[in-house]
């Protein structure tokens, strides 16, 4: 038996080694070629630029391509040669390597994709050379931009002590002024922020490091602290080190602290929210019962399907937890929002947002103190097949059941039927959904509770366990000018309510096992009978 095992193992191993060798060969082929210093061909670069870049950055590199008016942040204006992501001190030009990195990887959290997969090495270098021709600053070749010499991160970055130090300096060097006390971009200065061109700009939400323009690692964060993001309100903190107000280690600790605010990995979308069965329903958003419940992340994107479209949603996603008892369900939706709208201090910001974006309407809207809103959407009944109502708030023929919560009345959400994006028919006060909401340092936490059963089964979804119940989320950030059809939307996801395990779950496997065992024994018995019969005959 053992010999057999090793024989098989050896065989498999040899095969795997052979396959691995083949792979090494295949992958190794392109590797030995040295990254040859291509001559930077600006005319070839121009062709690439016109084909792939001009749509957003404009024919003349002024960041005014046809796509520009639908993006916040807007595409880079190359004529000023002002670049956010550099390795050089503030005010200096970026190095070629810096620019190439942005071209290769793109800028996370923006519309700029990485081009590594689309363009060849040569094409990317050519286009880099061409981009530099837009600004006279690059023409002066006497000044070569010099990268800052960075050290490496001190160890113990994840430790409580290090984070405490990081937090201390996070406060003392004033990060919280813009990024807020908890780092959600809700600092007191946040509403005033704009970039060099006067476009609105959000202080980064430090809890979403996957959206940091220049990358989300501790090193990336540290580099941004040292260089600043030119063209944006984010300054360089290098002077602090030079003038000995801060040690290098302390600045690293700040970077490590900022990194610690985001999850280890970017959240992965799981379609089905598992809703466990609990004894007690937590009504408060900060009830300790929530800590034991699994959390689900659903990304939200701009409503760009129906007029009036919205290209710059502020809410990037919702975190959802849900539990249910024998008769009720509680759904906690958490999302980051830089202000508890309506907040008049954000009115100029809304004005800037509305000015920056092209609108479908000919007339530009005037900013108003709109509230924050959230809608949770369900079908009217649990669908049996794959079919669902139209995810964008149903249609005239197939309405959806929605809970609409608004920051202007935090204790109850209006339940109603949406028949298309611009039509919402409330179901009356009796159908309202009690909610408890907390706004805490740039984050809304809202708990919706409802009985599983409903009196009006035709329009108010009765929740049932053991079924995939479609659910979708819509969010409006009033301080970003969102209201009406201007919102962040999600596609359909699902809630699955646990049900008490029925007996058959345990009985059928046992039954199957007994049957199998019996059958197996029969086979063995027959085989042995036959042999002994044959033997007997011999």
């Amino acid at each position, binding site marked *: 038996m053992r010999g057999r095992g090793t024989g098989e193992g050896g065989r498999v191993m040899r095969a795997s080694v052979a396959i691995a060798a083949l792979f090494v060969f295949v992958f190794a082929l392109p590797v030995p070629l040295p990254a040859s210093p291509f001559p930077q061909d600006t005319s070839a670069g121009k062709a690439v630029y016109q084909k792939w870049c001009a749509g957003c950055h404009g024919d003349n590199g002024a960041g005014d391509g046809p796509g520009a008016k639908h993006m916040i942040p807007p595409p880079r204006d190359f004529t*000023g040669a*002002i670049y956010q992501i550099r390795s050089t001190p*503030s*005010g*200096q*030009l970026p190095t070629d390597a810096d620019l190439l990195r942005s071209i290769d990887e793109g800028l996370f959290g923006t519309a700029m994709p990485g081009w590594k997969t689309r363009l060849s090495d040569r094409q990317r270098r050519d286009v880099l050379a061409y981009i530099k021709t837009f600004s006279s*600053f690059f023409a002066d070749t006497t000044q070569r931009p010099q990268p800052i010499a960075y050290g490496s991160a001190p160890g113990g970055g994840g430790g409580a002590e290090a984070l405490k130090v990081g937090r201390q300096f996070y406060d*003392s*060097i*004033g990060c919280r*002024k*813009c990024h807020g006390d908890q780092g959600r971009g809700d600092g*007191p*200065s946040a509403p*005033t*922020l704009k970039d*060099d061109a006067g476009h609105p700009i959000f202080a980064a939400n430090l809890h979403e490091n996957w959206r940091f323009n220049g990358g989300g690692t501790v090193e990336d964060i540290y580099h941004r602290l040292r260089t*600043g*993001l*030119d*063209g*944006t*309100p*984010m*300054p*360089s*903190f*290098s*002077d*602090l080190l030079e*003038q000995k*107000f801060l040690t290098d280690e302390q600045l690293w600790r700040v970077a490590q602290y900022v990194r610690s605010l985001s999850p280890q990995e970017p959240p992965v979308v799981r379609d089905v929210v598992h809703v466990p069965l609990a004894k007690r329903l937590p009504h408060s958003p900060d009830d300790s019962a929530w800590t034991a419940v699994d959390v689900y992340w659903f990304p939200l994107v701009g409503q760009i399907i129906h007029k009036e479209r919205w290209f710059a949603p502020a809410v990037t996603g919702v975190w959802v937890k849900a539990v249910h008892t024998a008769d009720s369900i509680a759904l906690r939706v958490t999302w980051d929002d830089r202000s508890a709208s309506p907040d008049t201090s954000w009115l100029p910001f809304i004005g800037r947002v509305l000015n920056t974006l092209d609108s479908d309407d000919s007339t530009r809207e005037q900013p108003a103190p709109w509230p924050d809103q959230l809608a949770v959407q369900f079908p009217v009944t649990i669908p049996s097949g794959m079919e669902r109502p139209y995810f964008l708030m149903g249609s005239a023929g197939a309405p959806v059941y929605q809970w609409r919560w608004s920051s202007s009345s935090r204790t109850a959400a209006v339940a109603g039927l949406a028949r298309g994006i611009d039509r919402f028919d409330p179901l009356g006060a009796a159908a309202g959904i009690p909610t408890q909401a907390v706004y805490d340092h740039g984050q809304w936490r809202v708990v919706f509770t409802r009985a599983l059963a409903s009196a009006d089964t035709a329009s108010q979804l009765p929740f049932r366990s053991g079924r995939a119940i479609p659910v979708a989320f819509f969010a409006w950030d009033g301080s970003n000018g969102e209201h009406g059809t201007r919102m962040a939307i999600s596609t359909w996801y699902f809630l699955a309510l646990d049900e008490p395990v029925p007996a058959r779950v345990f009985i059928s496997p046992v039954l199957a096992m007994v049957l199998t065992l019996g059958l197996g024994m029969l086979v063995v018995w027959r085989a042995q009978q036959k042999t002994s019969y044959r033997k007997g005959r011999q």
Partner: protein
Amino acid sequence: MTGRIFNVVGAMFLLTVCSKGSQSNAAPAAPPPAPAAASDLAAAGGTITGKIKFTGTAPRNPAIDMSEEAACKAKYTTTPTEENVVAGPANALANVFVYVKSGLPAGQTFPAPATPVVLDQNGCRYHPHILGVMVGQNLEIKNSDPVLHNIKAIAKKNRPFNVSQPNAGMTKTVTFSQPEVMVNLECNVHGWMHAYAGVRSDPFFAVSQQDGSFTISGLPPGTYTIEAWHEKFGTQTATVTIAGTESKTANFTFAAH
């Protein structure tokens, strides 16, 4: 205050040029080696003075809510306001940057003074609000507030920068390489903080004082276009011909809407 600083700077400048001794002016057509020539011209040149006024009523400067910054707030007894329009008595307009826009001989260069221009961040406001600085001259930015300021330059012809000064006593020295009117300086932490720096390659510029007066001196003979720039009211130009060491007057009147 702006005027005072400018006076100091101007006086020092004059002192510097005077100490070199005065010589007769050379033909502007063929400028001799720059530094010497410039000094000569300055000593020998004419002067433009003027008053700047505005018509209409000045818009009110918005009050600044400094509640977020106790340290700054404590420096004021009354509610501080922004400095968008600083007006003196009888509609005199201060904080107007007046400079020679054109008319100086081409190719002539002027040395940058060794003394820096100082921009102080004090009480969450910039001092001065409008300043002039020469190409290559140091601009020293210091923070007198124990709160975070970031000083961000928005410029087209010069490299912009954005550095932070979270601590009192921090300084940053910068220079500009190209003339540019104006380089905007702002603090993003405090949205109300704005300053404007006129960067010139010649020393012939001034900022109007509380009484609206300004003086540009040391101009060589020639016909000049003088421009007055105000952050809210825009620009106005005047043409002045200087012959010899005479003093000419150029008054500007802005319309307040």
